[in-house]
């Protein structure tokens, strides 16, 4: 196994693709944490911890769940909303969870409003503007998620989680695969389970996303 670890950045302007550094994707039933294959249970726990530690834990739902193009997408959207509501219930004062959409991938002219949306072509703007230090991608097409995750790792210190409906993402710090309504709800359960047991990073010198 590669010694390379997928860690929060900033890793510099052009971080290597994690796959090119020997990081491999998890098999069904597995996940990866920092590029190391782990059980899904461990990944739920770690993802919940990261959310509860973060000053601005954020979910970025992509077009595959924002648009109700089939029944499953609408159900996933409901589960994401529930995860967000759970986060809001479980964080401590001073933490501010966010839910910011990625409605599509086109370059936006004349500008992106980083307070209301994120775009895969310059996700760092939204991360910096809102001081997001932990985020989860869900419902984003894989190619765009890869692009975005690499840019985030390159330019920010944000911890990235991918709730991928396909085979997962090497470039996220933590990646699930085969995302489903059940998996999103299970993550919400873990957040609830760990409520009050995790110390938020509020007073840490490195609070908020840096660049």
């Amino acid at each position: 196994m590669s010694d390379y670890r997928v860690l929060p950045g900033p890793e510099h302007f052009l971080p290597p693709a994690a796959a090119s550094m020997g990081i491999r994707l998890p098999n069904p039933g597995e996940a990866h944490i920092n590029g190391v294959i782990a059980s899904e249970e461990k990944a739920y726990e770690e993802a919940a911890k990261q959310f509860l530690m973060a000053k601005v834990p954020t979910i970025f739902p992509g077009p595959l769940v924002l648009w109700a193009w089939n029944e499953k997408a609408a159900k996933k959207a409901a589960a994401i909303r529930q995860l967000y509501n759970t986060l809001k219930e479980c964080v401590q004062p001073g933490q501010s969870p966010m839910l910011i959409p990625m409605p599509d991938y086109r370059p936006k002219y004349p500008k992106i409003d980083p307070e209301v949306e994120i775009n895969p072509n310059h996700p760092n703007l939204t991360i910096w503007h809102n001081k997001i230090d932990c985020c989860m991608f869900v419902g984003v097409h894989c190619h765009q998620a890869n692009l975005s995750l690499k840019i985030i790792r390159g330019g920010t210190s944000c911890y990235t989680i991918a709730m991928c409906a396909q085979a997962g993402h090497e470039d996220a710090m933590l990646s699930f695969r085969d995302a489903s309504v059940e998996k999103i709800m299970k993550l919400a359960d873990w957040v609830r389970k760990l409520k009050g047991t995790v110390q938020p990073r509020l007073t840490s010198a490195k609070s908020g996303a840096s660049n």
Partner: protein
Amino acid sequence: MSKEKIKISEDLFDIMPSDYQDLVKSSTYGKEDRGWKDIGTSKELIEQHSLCAGCPESMAFRYILASLPNPEDTVMVGSTGCTSLVFPMVAVHNIHSLFGNQNAIASGLKRALSVRFPDRTKDVVVLAGDGATVDIGLDMTLQAWFRQEKFTTICFDNELYANTGGQESGLMQKGFVAKMAPVGKLFEKVRLPEIARESGCHYVVNCTVSKPSLVEKVIRNAVHIAREIGPTYLQLYTPCILEIGKNSMEGLQEMRDSEKPTERFAYKEYVSEPAKQLLAELAAKDKERKAAAKQLAGQATA
């Protein structure tokens, strides 16, 4: 894609940027009587664009998009140029082809759509500049017409290569001196509307985009004829105000000046016999629909 799929998940509706909410709530998709009068109230008709201030092409773009009879089932094929800067802002499917290839791409696309969706009406509309249509892509343009491909070709004629700094194009008028063509054009403007007619186009129009209602009429005619009968061609004058030394507010006047009866963009229309018949049928149906709607409205108020 159909308009039924353009729905935001209910649970995430509130977090969507207002542009998208408006697109879903108040777009003109599916409305039979959509037209240029919807501009300013419908998000899909380019609220913002990245063209120069006062660019007549932006007006043309808006009128065309407002006039498409079936936008949710229309694919536009574009080529490199100023138009390709606008397409990211447009809520209509589009393909950016290699420069000059647009009519070849559209041919394959139209055929593929007919096979893939035999029970749905799918329109293909090519929109390219004069360089892509008449110079570099002339072969593809003509061959598509010879083959009687059923799609509309729209040429934004600004009479030069504007996007690259003002080089001479086939549609430039004789004697015109551009920034990158200092000698002046030595031969006449290529008479593509006439070539289009002789190449088998069933509907050909040469005009400016100064009158939105006129643009609406020709776009609807061109798309309907292309759908049912065969190729159609529209050559629209969209002057590049930068390259001809005009100010932002002078684009409209430039078009008005160029459409006078003796000028090169005086309105010219050619309609083939089968196309005339189709337009007459469509007009009759439209009249019937409006009469029925009026009657219905009368009953409702009674």
